[in-house]
């Protein structure tokens, strides 16, 4: 039983040197945190995409823009304003404000609206891409950290071997096995992080493109409205 115990994965981890244990703990923590990020990003991006589709449908349904604005103002709590709605709100708010000032020139109104929407768009982009740098660093660094732990462990195991006259496989194998656990953990942390980073950054980019397109379309509508008012007035 003690022999089996020493070769189980817990035995290997418990027998490793302090540094290797620290490396393993670090990698385990990195794995947990990166999974938190992965899940959170996934949920956020899915929700953003759903909201974008729903809002776009509502927007192009021919609803009055004032009504849409009031609707989105009324939302609080879990259905709080998010994603593309923020851009719409920022642009429309600026538009109504500038329009209420009679002195405003139509070009100045359009410029103000576009600037407000650009700011909102930048905020949204930031939200979409939050935490992705962390995933990227976990993906790129944790294999190295794991490799470091392995190299250190193998180094120690060979240093212990130097004092032995007859080196059998049995004297080397446990040390190497315990050292390789670190690499395994590093890869275990890195692989999902790489996948998630690639997937989520691609998704974030498409969402940003969608937002930009929407902002352009919305500014085109506003532009039409400004000029039609100008012509009529």
């Amino acid at each position, binding site marked *: 039983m003690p022999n*089996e115990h020493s070769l189980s994965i817990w035995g290997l981890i418990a027998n490793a040197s302090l540094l290797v244990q620290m490396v393993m703990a670090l990698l*385990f923590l990195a794995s*947990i945190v990166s*999974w938190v990020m*992965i*899940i*959170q990003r996934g*949920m956020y991006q899915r929700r953003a995409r759903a909201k974008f589709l729903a809002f776009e449908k509502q927007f192009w349904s021919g609803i009055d823009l004032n009504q849409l604005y009031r609707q989105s103002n009324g939302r609080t709590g879990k259905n709080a304003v998010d994603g593309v709605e923020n851009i719409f709100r920022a642009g429309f708010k600026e538009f109504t404000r500038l329009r209420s000032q009679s002195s405003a020139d139509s070009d100045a109104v359009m410029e103000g609206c576009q600037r407000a929407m650009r700011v909102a768009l930048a905020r949204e982009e930031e939200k979409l891409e939050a935490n992705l740098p962390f995933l990227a660093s976990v993906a790129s660094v944790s294999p190295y950290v794991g490799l470091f732990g392995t190299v250190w462990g193998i180094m120690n195991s060979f240093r212990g071997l130097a004092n032995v006259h007859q080196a059998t496989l049995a004297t080397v194998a446990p040390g190497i096995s315990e050292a390789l656990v670190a690499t395994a953990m590093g890869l275990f942390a890195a692989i999902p992080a790489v996948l998630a980073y690639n997937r989520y950054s691609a998704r974030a980019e498409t969402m940003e493109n969608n937002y930009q397109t929407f902002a352009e379309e919305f500014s085109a509508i506003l532009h039409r409205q400004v000029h039609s008012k100008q012509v009529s007035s």
Partner: protein
Amino acid sequence: MNWRNLYTLPVIISVGLHLVLVLAITIGWESTIDPTPRVFKPNVVQAKLVELKAKDTAEPAQKKTNVIDLTKKRELEQQQAAAAKKAKEEAARKARVEREKKAKAEAERKRKLEEQRQAEAEAKRRAEKAAQEKAERERQERIAQERLDEAMRKEEQQHQAELAEAQSQSYVNMIASRIEQNWSRPPSARRGMQVELLIQLVPTGQVVNVTVTKSSGNAAFDRSAEQAVRRIDRFSELKNMSPELFEQNFRQLRLVFNPKDLRL
């Protein structure tokens, strides 16, 4: 959206996922690394005497016969009796066969035991014999070795003795030549004269005393030889001789002096 709402669910899911993984690894690893040793229990077969119950077969038949008339009943009874008898005989035969089998098995077992014991005894005897032979062989070898050693020792001794002899002879020759050199020939000396001298020496080569033990018949010759030894007084060559050799031959040296340059 506040911070807590954003992160509680992901944290729970992630930690749960890792716990599940750790558990799975632990269990899976243990199960792959620890194949439970299979214990084979020997199948024990106990020989049992099986009694055939003749009654069981007879009883239903009897019940049936209750409603049938006497002759038939008798017939049936006879049949029953016959059947019972047959069954009994059968049972007895089976029992006998069983007993025989058992006895046979017992005999077999005994025979095997006996054989085993014999084999053991045989092995033991053989081992003893082998040990004896080995001891004998060893003793003979030892004796041969001793003989060889003794022979070698003897040879060595002889060799040593020869060597010592040769050495002492060379010393004696040297002493004789020294005496001859210091000898002044008396006019009366003739060829073939020889005198035996007893020279007493100490390890330094110093002559303590010299006497004539066997005269040549010529007093002048005897005296001249004695005189020569006394004149030399000291044989310095003897200093580097080994002490044993000196003790053996030279403390009291009997020297036959017969000079060779006697012309007359």
